[in-house]
């Protein structure tokens, strides 16, 4: 009898072109290569310099999201993209995809969106696949039971040329989540709490598998939020075993298998969950029932407390002191009631339909507080259409928020959507690093529900106060 295997081990083994040896890493086959405008140009250049073809354009899929504008007039109205270098990058992706035969969802394509939103949305991401992209939040796709991880541009070139990567097998970490989340507490709060617990380097060298009844009870959007931020704990990939929720989500999607192929795929996918008794290198247990709405107070996602909590004291830690100085906070201070200047709802972490519904549920019939700039950016054009069909856009606009075209937007300051210097931004994105949302921007990461509550009150607010 063979030893019981985890979900990760099953996907890894089935993609070994050459297994790893003492003196050489494994050659791992890649089923889906997603690319975007920022981390691909130099890889295309490498192909040209070496006179290589792109081996499997049919397994390669391109979109543009990072440096693209979100203002409607710049996307559809012919107004120039405000960041000139970004416009060049977008055009270079168009030229490269044309030259190498890669399918590209261009700036005005109705299916365009953030790469980690559209992969699952189009049914490209499927259980048991290996998925890579030159972006660290590729971990998102693991929510469907794929092995998905971010790669650098040199590796993008490797996949272009060979459809393979050289990889050492990572260790495994099981995060077992039990109990029921209380009202007002969601997937974002859970993953922030996990990162707070293990730290921003705690998952380094590991693939995380999220398990337990709390995870099993999550819809796909929530699962993607959790897997998305695995990298913020240092883990290159996060995975969740596929189940009926996964199959229901995928059924009928544009690029999902259809008819007999669907039945065959389903049979394969049902073999993927870890075998009983399969062991992990490490395990961690989380009590979901004890969690509260969470918010970061510092300059990495591990610096996180409940919204009603107090900033810890770490005497003699100059890095901690520098981080708090950047944020304009002091040890022992509470963040609740702190004034907020900007609220951003969107990103590959929280730019899906259920995230927008959550934010809208608190904004319905309310107004964004005076002086607060709120930006709501759907994760894809499809999310945008679905939100508009439900009237969510009207709720945001009537509350005084801006409603934009899809893209990475304010998550990272490279597309014109910026948080001004010194301003406090409650953001549903994934990184609160210094300068991430703009030079001197002060980011407070939180859930869509919490972000909306903060927008209404103009102060850091526990969403349960408004529910």
């Amino acid at each position, binding site marked *: 009898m063979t030893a019981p295997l985890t979900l990760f081990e099953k996907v890894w083994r089935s993609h070994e*072109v*050459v297994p790893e040896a*003492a*003196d*050489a*890493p494994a*050659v791992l*086959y890649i089923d889906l290569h997603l690319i975007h405008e*920022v*981390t691909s140009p*130099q890889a295309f*250049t*490498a192909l040209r310099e070496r006179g290589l073809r792109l081996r499997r354009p049919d397994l390669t899929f391109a979109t543009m999201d*990072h*440096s693209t504008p979100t203002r409607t007039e710049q996307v559809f109205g012919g107004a120039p993209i405000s*960041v000139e*270098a*970004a416009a*060049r*990058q977008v055009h*270079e992706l168009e030229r490269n995809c044309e030259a190498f035969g890669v399918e590209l969802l261009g700036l005005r394509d109705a299916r365009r969106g953030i790469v980690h939103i559209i992969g699952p949305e189009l049914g490209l991401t499927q259980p048991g696949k290996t998925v890579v992209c*030159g*972006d*660290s939040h*590729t971990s998102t796709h693991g929510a469907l039971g794929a092995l998905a991880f*971010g*790669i*650098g*541009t*040199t*590796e993008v*070139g*490797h996949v272009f*040329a*060979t*459809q*393979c*990567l*050289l990889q050492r097998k*990572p260790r495994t970490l099981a995060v077992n989540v039990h109990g029921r989340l209380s009202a007002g507490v969601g997937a974002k709060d859970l993953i922030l709490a996990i990162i707070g617990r293990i730290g*921003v*380097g705690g998952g*380094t*060298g590991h693939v995380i598998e999220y398990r337990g009844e709390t995870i099993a009870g999550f819809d796909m959007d929530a699962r993607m939020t959790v897997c998305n931020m695995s*990298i913020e704990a*240092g883990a*290159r990939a996060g995975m969740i075993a596929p189940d009926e929720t996964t199959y229901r989500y995928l059924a009928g999607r544009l690029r999902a298998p259809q008819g007999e192929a669907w039945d065959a795929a389903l049979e394969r996918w049902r073999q993927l969950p870890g075998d009983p008794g399969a062991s992990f290198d490490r395990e961690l247990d989380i009590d979901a029932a004890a969690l509260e709405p969470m918010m970061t107070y510092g300059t*990495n996602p591990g610096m996180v407390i409940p919204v009603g909590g107090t900033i810890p004291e770490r005497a003699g830690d*100059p*890095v901690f002191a*520098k981080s708090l100085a950047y944020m304009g906070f002091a040890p022992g201070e509470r963040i609740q009631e702190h004034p907020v200047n900007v609220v951003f709802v969107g990103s590959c972490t929280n730019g899906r339909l259920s995230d927008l519904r959550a934010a809208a549920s608190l904004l319905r019939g309310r107004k964004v507080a005076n002086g607060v700039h709120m930006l709501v950016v759907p994760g894809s054009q499809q999310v945008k259409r679905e939100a508009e069909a439900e009237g969510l856009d009207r709720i945001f606009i009537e509350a005084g928020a801006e409603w934009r075209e899809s893209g990475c937007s304010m998550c*990272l*300051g*490279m597309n014109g959507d910026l948080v001004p210097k010194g301003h406090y931004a409650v953001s549903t994105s994934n*990184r609160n*690093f*210094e*300068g*991430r949302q703009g*030079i001197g921007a002060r980011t407070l990461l939180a859930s869509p529900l919490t972000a909306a509550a903060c927008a209404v009150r103009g102060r850091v607010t526990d969403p349960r106060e408004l529910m």
Partner: protein
Amino acid sequence: MEPIRTLRSRTVVLAASDIDTDQIIPARFLTTTSREGLGEHLFADWRYGPDGAPRADFVLNQPQARGCSILVAGHNFGCGSSREHAPWALTDFGVRAVVSTQIADIFRSNALKNGLLPVIVEPGAHRWLIEHPGAEVTIDLDSSTLRLPGGETVRYPLEPFARYCLMNGVDELGFLLEREAQIAAYEARSAAA
């Protein structure tokens, strides 16, 4: 890629832990389509003041940092994004090795592909290095050791294949391209399944 066998240099120290890739190279510089010239923007928000002038209090702007090719950094260096612009910026600036107690996975993988050596040392040696900026150290690849000025050596783990590639200036793509027959066989097997 230039082969590396040994590196001998004074160190420059950035003691902060969890230095992320947004600090190494802020996102606004990622709109480039080439890999050259990023050294100018390395640690841009720490290195330059609001007026664009170099900040005298930042270590990389100080005279003793000139010519140093070994960066000693706090725990968990390079966390955050997958941007290879981070090692490109470091190597363009002249850094050839980063020494820490932990280096983030994607940064480490990217570094190796650009002849930037990730060196993980145990906390004792790391503390000594943090406390002695400017120390003249030698990093030897063949023996996987870092020699401190007093002659004491500490070993660091380096995956054998990565060491082979660095010491011989071999790039991984050549190795992968040589596996074409196995890749094609894998594809044939998968298609049949």
